[in-house]
């Protein structure tokens, strides 16, 4: 098991006492991300849970400049900011999009893909809590098959959309998945993204106590269980070369992950089997890519 960093010397660029839900994984990710990127960072958040960090009226949680973008256009704003900074000769600033799964895999996909195609230097971090949580738990393209949400009251009938894999196919200098349960792995990946001369994309699995219906103190446990059962795989791809950063020799049964959350309480045997197939296919795909990448 990975140990959580004991270092306290890292300066915080996100205030304490924010109004995120108890047990919020998104806030942890944002805090860690900025500890690594430092103060020379411009943050973009769309209307989403991350907008809580950007603030209300005269208050903001960030100690760095932030812009509340539109939901579908984080990528486009990031492009404009980067090019604007370049024409003004300011090349020492990180431009970071920090968006949820809805703003990334659904409505924001076009602008994100466009910005990646253009090769602009920016870091896009998707905190994936598998639904539209800020509006109150509606399904997104990232919601797991079988999961209850307020708009899939009988359980989601489609497999999740794997946007990290889509972007791997598109081609991007640096891409990674991460998990709030493995914060040092996430930190390493932000560190790599920091020095990439082009776009980088980090998709972070972020269990949500409020929306997934588990006790607030179990966020990290749920996140780790997702990785240990293969429901979430930690990997990175540098110039398309895939490396699984946390290899799993034998997966725990997926039921152990599902059981921790009330959102899966109604799933059928058939859905369970489809999830098992999804896990196997997903891991095999990455293993094959890793082998082809020649390590």
């Amino acid at each position, binding site marked *: 098991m990975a140990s959580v960093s004991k270092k306290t010397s890292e300066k915080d660029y996100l205030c304490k006492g924010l109004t995120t839900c108890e047990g919020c994984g998104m806030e942890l990710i944002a805090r860690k991300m900025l500890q690594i990127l430092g103060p020379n960072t411009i943050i973009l958040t769309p209307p989403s849970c991350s907008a809580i960090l950007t603030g209300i009226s005269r208050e903001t949680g960030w100690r760095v400049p932030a812009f509340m973008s539109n939901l*579908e256009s984080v990528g486009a704003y990031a492009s404009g900011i980067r090019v604007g900074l370049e024409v003004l000769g300011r090349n020492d600033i990180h431009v970071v999009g920090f968006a949820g799964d809805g703003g990334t895999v659904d409505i924001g996909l076009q602008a994100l893909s466009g910005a990646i195609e253009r090769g602009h230097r920016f870091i896009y971090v998707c905190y994936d809590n598998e639904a539209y949580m800020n509006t109150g738990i509606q399904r997104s393209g990232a919601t797991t098959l079988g999961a209850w949400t307020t708009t899939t009251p009988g359980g989601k009938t489609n497999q999740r959309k794997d946007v990290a894999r889509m972007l791997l196919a598109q081609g991007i200098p640096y891409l990674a998945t991460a998990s709030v349960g493995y914060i040092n792995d996430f930190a390493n990946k932000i560190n790599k993204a920091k020095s990439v001369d082009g776009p980088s994309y980090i998709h972070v699995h972020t269990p949500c106590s409020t929306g997934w219906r588990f006790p607030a103190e179990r966020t990290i446990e749920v996140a780790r269980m997702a990785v240990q059962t293969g429901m979430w795989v930690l990997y990175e791809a540098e110039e398309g070369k895939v490396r699984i950063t946390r290899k799993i020799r034998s997966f725990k049964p997926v039921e152990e992950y599902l059981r921790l959350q009330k959102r899966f309480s109604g799933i059928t045997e058939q859905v369970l089997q489809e999830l098992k197939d999804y896990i196997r296919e997903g891991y095999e795909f990455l293993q094959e890519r890793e082998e082809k990448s020649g390590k």
Partner: protein
Amino acid sequence: MIRKAMDGNMAAAEGARLARVQVVAAYPITPQTPIVEHLASLIAKGRLAARYINVESEHSALCAVIGASLVGARVFTATASAGLALMHEVTGVAAGCRLPIVMPIVNRALPSPWSLWCDHSDSMGERDQGWIQFYAENSQEVLDLVILAYRLAEDKRILLPVNICLDGFFLSHTTEAVLVPEQGEVDAFLPPYCGQNLILDPQEPLAVNVLTGPEIFTEIKYQQKQAMDRVFPVMEEIGLEFARRFGRFYPPFSAEFCEDAEVILVTMGTMSGVARYVVKGLREQGKRVGLLKLRVFRPFPGKEISRVLRKAKAVAVIDRSAGLGSLGPLSLEIKGALYTSGLDEAPMVRSYIAGLGGRDITEETIGQVIEDTFGTLGNPRDEYASKWIDLRKEEC
């Protein structure tokens, strides 16, 4: 200053070049495409020191220039019709963030049905979004207004984005002679942009465009309104300087033959040229008709316009957009301006719809509008309706 043949699109692009824009983000759409092609070519050849962002939609085009403007760059984009409609969500962001973006709209009808051709339904849909809106009559105006627009938009008293509306094909694709100022002359009029309002800068961290509660939202909107209120005095000051340097003056509207006119025709855009020709002809025949050509639609110069119009017996307004469910939008503005002027007797205002989806507004159309309005002079009507003057009734 040199004399060159160019169409409205080229004039818009040349205006942007002379304004030394630093970032262009655009998505092609008929009839705007030649503007962005020309700018891309200028940048590629090194004739304009700017960066061109090839975006994947108009929504992203405006977001990208908003982003670049937020860090302090002078930015440009252009669009039309459905592209503008797609941008609609973020036109309010540009205005609310008080960014001096200049964006020509090459007027083209909004679907449905699909049309490639001119009317003002696209730009009219943006009229309350907080942008200054100019309507140009010819290529010279387009080029000059782009340069003027940056100076106006970037003025600390204003800080509002600007649309320059030019009629698709009628103006965008019609070549005429344009006086192109020298770069040095433009530089003397338009200094480099220095962003100083809402700027994303790690040296002075600021959260911009945040969720805003009812305790302060109204006041932020009111500040936009105050900036709009300052446009005409600032525009006059800037316009006079422009006139001193370049010899051309652009007031919010121009009134011709209006002093003793019984009927005044109100127009915007390229139809004004035809209208002027027809009005001149009728004047020679002794008909007391005048022309008020509106150049600035937002803010609306209602007070000044009502001073000209109230001397007439009737006002004929031609709208190049349908105003479905009500009257033509320009006629509503004119009626509003006259009603609030505090006069006991205001002239009758006739609302005409013409020139939709590229239908030519001909001498005959203008003639019919004037004749129809004269016909109502001794014959007041109790009606609240627009007259679709160039309608082909046999098709309805």
